[in-house]
């Protein structure tokens, strides 16, 4: 099992979610985070353009079985990119190994429980 963590732009959450659902990945956990990468979004503050240090991002965590990993990554890659060429700040996907997964409701473990 893998744990896929994607950091994406806030305005793409809806689309990524839709893409994942289309790829039959229905269970996700989402949280707010703030990122510092290469992107530089500007806000206006009393007539001055201000590039905030830390930019709002969304973090999506997906636990999935190996065979779904590629589909999930593909869905995210396609839906989270701004335009054809992508934009600075479009985000990253991190994948780690997931040793165990347990469904609290039933106590099921492992791939069943994903």
């Amino acid at each position, binding site marked *: 099992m893998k744990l896929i963590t994607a950091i994406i732009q*806030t*305005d*793409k959450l*809806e*689309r990524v979610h839709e893409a994942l659902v289309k790829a039959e990945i229905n269970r996700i956990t989402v949280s*707010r985070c*703030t990122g510092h990468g290469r992107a530089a979004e*500007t*806000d*206006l503050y009393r007539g001055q353009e201000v590039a*905030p240090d*830390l930019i*709002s991002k969304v973090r999506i965590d997906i636990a999935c079985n190996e065979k779904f990993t590629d589909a999930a990554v593909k869905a995210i890659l396609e839906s989270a990119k701004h335009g054809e060429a992508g934009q600075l700040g479009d985000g990253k996907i991190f994948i780690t190994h997931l040793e165990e997964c347990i469904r609290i409701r039933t106590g099921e473990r492992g791939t069943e429980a994903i």
Partner: protein
Amino acid sequence: MKTIIMLTVFILLAGSRVLFAGETIAVDTGTTAWMLTSTTLVLLMVPGLALFYGGLVRTKNVIGTMMHSFAAMSIIGVIWAICGYSMCFGDSHGWCGWNWDFFFLKGIDASVNAETRIPDLVFAMFQGKFAIITPALIAGAFAERVKFRGYCVFIAIWSLVVYNPLAHWVWGGGFLTGTAIDFAGGTVIHISAGVAGLVLALYLGARRGYPKIAMHPNNLVMTLTGAGLLWVGWFGFNAGSSVASGIQTAQALTVTQVAAATGALTWILIEALLHKKATSLGFVSGMLAGLVVITPAAGDVQVAGAIALGIIASIVCYGAVIAKGKLKYDDTLDVFGIHGMAGIIGAIGLTFFLRPMDGRPEFLTQLWYQTQGVLISIVYAGVVTFVLAVIIEKTIGLKLNETDEMSGMDHSLHSEHGYGLLNLN
């Protein structure tokens, strides 16, 4: 001698230091005080509305939505002083009024109304706040999907071609003045705003994902706060519309309070019956329905009538909101469902509860007057709004494009974020 004494008394007592050649109109400081206060209270409704609406949209649109109210405050604020007052309360010329003396409010700089005994400027400012709040109300119907520039142009023109004429017809000496009862703006304000909202919601279409995706209020605390300010401000709205500080003022304030309370209570009782829950949004929706329904009627019905109207309004508006859900059109914040519907009920329904008074027309006559006012208001506001919307959409654009809608108005239109606190800073 009588005259001498009286003049002396006038000058000494009435607190007025400005006398006019020939005629002597003393300011009634008490009435003026209340009208100044009312003006302030109605202005308070604008941030109140900004909070009310702002709390109901999604986080990414909170600033953009608040800006709709604030923008009305400044755009109409300027237009009104320049020519709006003149169009509404100038000498009647059919479609609208006009009086060069009122241009830039120059000619009323120091004049006092002979009947109400308040400075004309106070009346002009009080009325100006109504002109401000009406377009701000409309904004709720197409919240979360409108361009700021288009919106600004829209309300400016709408105010000139819809609000000002309507207000002139009903209040300013136009052809409806003296027939239809519209104490504080049921037809002029709520029906016209509600209908305009409906037309725009239909014309612009729904938000992306509506109604499939649930769109949660970002801050109900804010909405409740706004509702509180609206209730408070409405006392200025309705009780101020007596342009006095006396018995009718007291009557208007009383029924306003009672109708709001009844409306709120009715709505949560309906919810309790149907869902075993009473929501805060339901509470404020019912409160609003009650406030709107009593607006045209405030000077002319009594407590029992206010209770009846409050109950009816809440029930009907509840139904209208459910119906919207079924019909699947996207009147984001139910401007038509609440302001439009409750306005219509109030304008027509008041006929059934009129305070007995000498010199009233017969029941059916009055009912016809009221219905006529409502119909004219609906048709005029509906048609002109539609034409205006089409023109603006085709020229500078009114509907937000999908990308900007998804990023949210705050980011795409204003380069800001409502809640920096969500970030680490």
